[in-house]
């Protein structure tokens, strides 16, 4: 598939990263330095020019493209790009926006684009999902949240009953399946004889109920997050506040800029807003921020986020989530003991690139910088896997986590068969996603 990506910023880069192996990508940007960096990392065409102009789009071959991703940080430019693409080609258009009004207009059918995605909202939803299953690094919802994919690290110091025992005999929460074990940055296929060890990074496909059971095991006791301290009230912080308040979670917002704090307090009557840096331990103690069940760090500066997160951790906030500025920062935050990191460009790209996949693929979740993907694919009748029992499938690097049949989620048992029309929730290595899609 020919894909035109407009904007070589962080979102564009994340999109290209997950698309370049399977698809023919052309990237348009007005900054030659960014294009050069892009072409050095990935095998893509680059076109220097204005992505909202006809000339650059035609040079990039938009006429033959099947998908156009407009992912600059300028909403209006993205919309113009999509409008032009509509006239110049039959490509499907996906537009990134920061403005909730545009998103609303698109939902009501007033903007002629195929899909609209907001980095801020996707980031906020990612935070909200992790808050819903505390203890995990990342959580994705499939089948309206009936099936949840959790990624977490097994604590090194905890005594979990199933650690060290073969998966076939370990007493894991029912209705859940381990689909990946990452040990020393290498992925192990979780066969029946494999076992979980403390310190492993694990990806699990679980029912809603099982996800809570996993969360309880990881947090070592029942703990529901109902009180969040949010550091930073920029665009991302505003979106997070809105999403969490909608879920009736108490939000305390700490913003260092007086004017911004005032405007936040005006727009959110449900949230409590503080004008503070969040770096004073005395403030954290006095306002009982240290007693919050979770702290989210969404300030504009990664050093500030890191400092504030470590400070919160030191003072005993049980669960910390950081919104990353640069994807590479994840390791630093991990090393500092931050429990979960959310990568906004990756969250945005995850939604955008779905259109590059087979139309039978309803949803994609990316893990570990897009090394692994979990796909939701509907099985076609002529698939070689149709009517086969799960236990009879040839061993591959892909692992089926769950099926959706007749509106119910089914979790793998040995005699479960795959039927045409089933939705398969399958864990794949990113570069094999196309192979798996074609096979099913």
């Amino acid at each position: 598939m020919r894909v035109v990506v407009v904007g070589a910023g962080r979102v564009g880069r994340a999109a290209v990263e997950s698309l370049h192996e399977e698809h023919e990508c052309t990237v348009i940007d007005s900054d030659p330095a960014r294009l050069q960096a892009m072409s050095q990392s990935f095998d893509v065409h680059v076109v220097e020019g204005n992505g909202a102009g006809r000339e650059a789009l035609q040079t990039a071959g938009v006429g033959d493209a099947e998908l156009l991703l407009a992912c600059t940080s300028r909403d209006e430019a993205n919309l113009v790009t999509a409008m032009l693409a509509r006239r110049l080609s039959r490509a499907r258009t996906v537009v990134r926006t920061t403005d909730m009004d545009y998103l609303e207009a698109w939902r009501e059918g007033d903007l002629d684009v195929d899909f609209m995605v907001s980095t801020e909202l996707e980031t906020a939803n990612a935070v909200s999902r992790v808050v819903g299953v505390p203890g995990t690094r990342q959580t994705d919802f499939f089948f309206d949240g009936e099936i949840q994919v959790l990624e977490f690290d097994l604590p090194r110091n905890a005594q979990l009953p199933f650690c060290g025992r073969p998966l076939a005999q370990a007493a894991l929460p029912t209705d859940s399946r381990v689909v990946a074990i990452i040990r020393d940055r290498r992925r192990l296929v979780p066969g029946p004889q494999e076992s979980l060890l403390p310190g492993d990074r694990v990806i699990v496909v679980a029912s809603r109920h099982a996800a809570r059971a996993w969360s309880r095991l990881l947090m070592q006791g029942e703990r529901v997050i109902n009180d969040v301290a949010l550091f930073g009230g920029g665009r991302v912080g505003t979106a997070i506040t809105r999403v969490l308040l909608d879920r009736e979670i108490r939000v305390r917002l700490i913003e260092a800029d007086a004017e911004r704090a005032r405007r936040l307090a005006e727009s959110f009557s449900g949230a409590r807003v503080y004008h503070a840096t969040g770096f004073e331990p005395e403030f954290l103690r006095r306002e009982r921020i240290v007693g919050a069940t979770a702290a989210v760090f969404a300030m504009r500066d990664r050093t500030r986020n890191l400092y504030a997160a470590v400070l919160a951790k030191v003072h005993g906030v049980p669960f910390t989530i950081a919104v990353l500025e640069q994807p590479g920062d994840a390791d630093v935050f991990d090393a500092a003991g931050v429990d979960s990191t959310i990568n906004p460009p990756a969250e945005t790209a995850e939604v955008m690139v779905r259109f590059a996949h087979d139309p039978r693929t309803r949803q994609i979740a990316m893990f570990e910088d897009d090394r692994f993907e979990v796909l939701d694919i509907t099985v076609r009748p002529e698939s070689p896997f149709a009517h086969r029992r799960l236990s009879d499938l040839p061993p591959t690097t892909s692992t089926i986590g769950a099926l959706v049949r007749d509106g119910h989620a089914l979790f793998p048992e040995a005699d479960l068969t795959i039927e045409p029309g089933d939705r398969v929730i399958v864990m794949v290595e990113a570069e094999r996603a196309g192979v798996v899609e074609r096979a099913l």
Partner: protein
Amino acid sequence: MPASSSALSDGPHRVTDQLRRPLAHPRLGVDLATTLDIVGAVLKWFSTAFAAPAVVALIAGESPWPFVLAGVAALAAGLGLDRLVADRDSEPLGPREGFLMIALVWLLVPAFGALPFLLSGADQLARPVDAYFEAVSGFTATGATVLDNVESLGQGLLFWRQLSHWLGGMGIIVLAIAVLPRLRVGGRHLLQRELPGPTEIERLGATVRETARRLWKLYVGMTVVGILLLAGTGWLGLDPRMSLFDAFAHATSAVSLGGFSTQAESAGAFAPITQWILIGLMVVAGVNFLRLYRLIVLREVRAVSRDEELRLYLALLLIGTAIVASELFSSGAVHGFAGVRHAAFQTVSVMTTTGFATLDWTTWGALATLTLLLLMFVGASAGSTGGSIKVVRHLMLFRLARRELEIAVHREVVMPVRVSRVTIDEGALRSAVMFVLLYLTVFAVGSLARVIDARRVGGELGAFEALGAAAACLGNVGPGFGIAGPFGSYSSFSDLSTVLLSALMWLGRLEIVPVAVLLTRTFWRA
């Protein structure tokens, strides 16, 4: 720099410019000429109002000349001011000119309004200070009177007193904005200033001129409904004492939250049904007219149902009625359902700053009289015709206090003050605090001055009476306590006290600020 030297150095056309602007002074920061030009225009229009009482006097067989002469005087003054400053239609009306113009209009209009009282030779209003007091009380919709025997006044004068309430209630300047094309520029500031209390004029979603017109249309409509309701009780025989003239008199007085009556016993002269109608009219007139317009004309129920000021206003009326009723019933002064009516009537009348009465509250116990005194500081809603502090300012200050208490504990918390889910900006909060402070200061000085003056002329005045008179005049309520009670009058007061209380009424109607800024030096400086 002297004016002449600058004129000379700038050449001949500068000289003619100076000649055309005799009131301009290089060090003066206020454009006096423009101000007087507009005051003149308002007076010209105001002079037409004298035609109505002249006609009434003719019909009643009295002399129309006092009204005709007063009208001619107002017209002459208006034309004179116009002539004096030549044509200044192009000059914009700035905030300073607006303040000065409002203060002057509200001083001059009662001055011309007092002329018929003097010219008619009525004994009770023979002294100029008394006539002026009565006129100020009329136009500020206060309802305080120096008349000991109101019924001896001719129909023309009685009509004029009620008409002055009605004209002043919604505001002469609001009317002027509605009709004078000259006030299109700068009118917003004036409308904001003259509509009592802090209220958002933008919300009516029209031009300032259109807003002023809509307000007056609603006001006229309410008055007509009031007249019909009251006259209906007379026609249907429910209240034999209610004539069409009395219906007009009491409807205008109630809708403008004034308080003048044609009867010595005020509303007590009428049947219970009439008194209930008056309660209803006062309660409705005490609501923000912008909200009323949205409810009645635009049928936006949510604009009213979510209004916290309205809720608090109604709640305070109910609480006040309950306290007054408990005192009246326990002292045995009233019985049965009539007691509820009396309690509700005085509470509504005092809190909305009207000043009607069905009973003499002066003789009541401390709980009821103190409640009434305190209600004089509540007032009606912002954007109504009532006076005093206004419910919304109390609401704002309570929310402000809650915010400050919160900050005392949580130093870094940011909490906007909201009323009816709308954030009140810090400037509006500051001006509310400042207004209440100025209001209480003027009240304190006024009541002290009243006591000192009473001592000077050799009388002894109770503290409660002094507080009552100052609160009733400053709050545009009207009747106070003691001799100035609802069935008494202010006639026994010394000239100095009469002038003092006239000034309080003037300050109360203008909400102090337009007068207070005139006292600052920087107001006058260039």
